């Protein structure tokens, strides 16, 4: 490949080092954009193109490592590829869901509400689609420490899947519920007033379905195995 000597002449570094440092630069640029803008910026055609190029480059490294029988390098680069592919799969399915069901959305509920529609937007007013099950909020509870800081948020819900007995789930922060491939999270809460001016407390439950996650986690396993083996291999030679 002829671009490597040119790259080396300009930067004084080998291509792999330049690649890592370029990744670090992109990462810092995204840090300056902050989470909301950065997450929107990467979910655009240029973002996807960059991810595909990165995954292809790392895939090339992994294949080359297989040919050279450098198994730790295969694990490291292959793990990165799996993470990238898993992210792209998640992004693709979010935009083109095969079954037409929503992949992401939230719903705000007060005690006793029942819903099977997910919403998006700043005030959760734009519907994104119907769930294959319905959810009813039995009760939203906030538990406090003695000094009035929050100990726990808990939404007790009843799930009704078609053709099944309804069942109860408790959704807490760090304890999402899994229903029909959806993870349901205790995301937020708030206070409002009803039509007579009486105070209401509502909970916001977030729904998420990401078929790319197993790929990403598989990538994490390869990556961690590779990093650990790499550390043990740092012997005296070379």
């Amino acid at each position, binding site marked *: 490949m002829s671009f490597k000597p040119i790259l080396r002449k300009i930067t004084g570094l*080998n291509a792999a080092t330049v690649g*890592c440092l370029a990744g670090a630069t992109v990462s810092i640029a995204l840090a300056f954009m902050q989470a909301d803008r950065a997450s929107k910026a990467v979910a655009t055609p240029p973002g996807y193109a960059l991810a595909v190029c990165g995954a292809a480059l790392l895939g090339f490294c992994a294949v080359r490592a297989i040919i050279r029988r450098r198994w730790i390098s295969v694990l490291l680069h292959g793990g990165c590829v799996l993470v990238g592919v898993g992210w792209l799969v998640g992004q693709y399915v979010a935009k083109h869901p095969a079954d037409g069901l929503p992949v992401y959305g939230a719903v705000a509920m007060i005690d006793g509400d029942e819903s099977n529609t997910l919403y998006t937007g700043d005030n959760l007013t734009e519907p994104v689609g119907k769930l294959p099950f319905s959810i009813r909020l039995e009760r939203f509870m906030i538990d406090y420490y003695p000094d009035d800081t929050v100990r726990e*948020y808990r939404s007790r819900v009843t799930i009704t899947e078609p053709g099944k007995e309804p069942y109860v789930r408790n959704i807490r922060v760090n304890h999402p519920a899994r229903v029909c491939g959806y993870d349901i999270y205790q995301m937020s809460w708030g206070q409002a007033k009803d039509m007579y001016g009486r105070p209401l407390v509502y909970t916001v439950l977030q729904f998420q379905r990401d078929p790319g996650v197993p790929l990403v986690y598989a990538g994490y396993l390869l990556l961690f195995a590779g990093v650990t083996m790499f550390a043990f291999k*740092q012997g005296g030679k070379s």
Partner: protein
Amino acid sequence: MAVKLTIQGGLIYLTMLFFIATLVAARLRRNQNATAFWIGGFAVALLSVAWRGFSTGHPPMQNLFEFFLCMAAALAPLSWWNLRRHGLDTKFQDAVIGLVILFPAGFVFKEEMRHLMPALQSPFFVPHVAAYVAGYVMMARATAIALPMFRRDTEAERLTRIDLAVRQSVAAGFVLITAGLLLGSVWGKVCWSNYWAWDPKEMWSLATWLVYAAYFHFRQRYGVSRPRSLAALLCVGLLFIVLTLTWINLSRIFSGMHTYA
């Protein structure tokens, strides 16, 4: 800037005194005394973490103050690992690092206690933070060990020895920061619904990880033929760690879900 007139403060200042004594003894080549002070410092640093955990009622890893206390306690075991494995006596550098770590804990950060909020009540909390505590301390120590690489008059044999110790230390630290990053990502999925939130601190941590990846790729290609560049890459990595721990945590430019203390 304030002096802490509390038991916690006393333990921090006592640790710092032990570290200063270690420095002085190491400079005067009183190796046994230095070791004794170093062990004493470690014991008090450990006590300081334990006291904090006892008084807050949760693992003391919630904010920067507690994070820095933990880093000070992680120094000595990692130092001992280099002594056993490479025959390197790093007490002097490590005591300096310890003082740098404990200065903000002793004089800048507030000691106020908070209950563990719902997001932090997770089995991922302790391993995620502990991996980063140990990983960051390891990287700081590895950078200190690598400093002679900047000197042009370091003889080849010594350079090879330092390179081996640095490489193994950075590799160990890399395992730790990889564990911290991946555990944090899986925790993010369980808690925030996404394994990656594009949060500024996540992005800086990824950048740090990539700088150390760059170090290994550079080392693989050039060996020890360019020691100054190797050491410079480690300095960049450490700079990123320091920025992640201070500026990114505290500045409003980088406000996000990791903002605390």
